[in-house]
């Protein structure tokens, strides 16, 4: 059983690397992406700084911030459009790979969980397994957990993860930024 467990960790590392490699070829190395990314990063930082030193009564400043936000929004949208292409490609590749692994590990207990998962996770952790012992772990559960930690770490290690400033500003497009209504 242990060899299966380790094999899945290995599979997850390889697929994460493959995914990043594919995205690198399709997206990260293109000029368009790099230009957009730099732009977004610069603008996010600028916006953050401007918001920090914001003078509540200064109307022209407020307008400037709004204009910057609009620009950033457009750039962010372009960036996600550029990424979309590779996301579809990797999505297809991964669905195929995953269904292959799923059939290999079908009905196999790949690990023992040291805890009983909460009920809505049990569907995942006990997928395609027989019996009522919920400490038995299926392939898909372990794979997802591995990917969750490995993919993000690989992205960060290789410098492909979006910068904090950008993701923070990006979020504020959909949710009000903290302190916005102070």
């Amino acid at each position, binding site marked *: 059983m242990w060899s299966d467990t380790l094999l899945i960790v290995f599979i997850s590392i390889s697929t994460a690397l493959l995914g990043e490699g594919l995205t690198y070829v399709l997206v990260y190395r293109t000029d368009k992406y790099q230009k957009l990314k730099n732009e977004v990063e610069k603008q996010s930082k600028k916006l953050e700084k401007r918001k920090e030193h914001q003078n509540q009564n200064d109307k022209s400043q407020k307008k400037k911030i709004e204009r910057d936000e609009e620009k950033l929004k457009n750039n962010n949208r372009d960036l996600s459009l550029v990424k979309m292409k590779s996301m579809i490609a990797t999505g297809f590749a991964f669905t195929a790979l995953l269904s292959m692994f799923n059939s290999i590990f079908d009905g196999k207990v790949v690990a023992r969980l*040291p805890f009983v998962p909460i009920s809505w996770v049990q569907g995942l952790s006990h997928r395609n397994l027989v019996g009522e012992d919920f400490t038995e772990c299926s392939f898909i559960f*372990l794979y997802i*957990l591995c990917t969750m930690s490995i993919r993000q770490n690989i992205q960060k290690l290789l410098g492909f993860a979006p*910068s904090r400033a950008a993701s923070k500003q990006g979020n504020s497009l959909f949710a009000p930024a903290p302190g916005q209504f102070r």
Partner: protein
Amino acid sequence: MTTKTSTITKNGSLKVSSEGSVWQKAITANSEWEDKDEFLDVIYWSRQVFGIILGVIWGIIPLKGMLGLALFAAISCAVVYLYSINFQSIDEEEYGGAWELIKEGFLASFAGFIVTWIIFYTGLHYDSIIAEKTL
């Protein structure tokens, strides 16, 4: 060996940053963190390592049940909080509140922790689990 890179910031002051100095700063109390991202990176990566170490320990003991999960979450958050506020004397408001510090890299480290916990638990205690089941 440390690689040093010097960049001249906008106001003309010289900023020296290197792998070694970040590590030095991380382990000395009350360091100055001009670059917020640098500090958050320190928290992020130490958290990943910390999660894996705890996972190994939990697996060897072995700790079982929700207690293990809760204990990890509590220890992980408490350590990050105490490290930033007490050891480094960080002004949490600068980072958008203590919550931002606590959630930095939490999910990834949590997943890493669970995976190592499962691996060590399965690998080291498999025979005893099966023996328990057949009794």
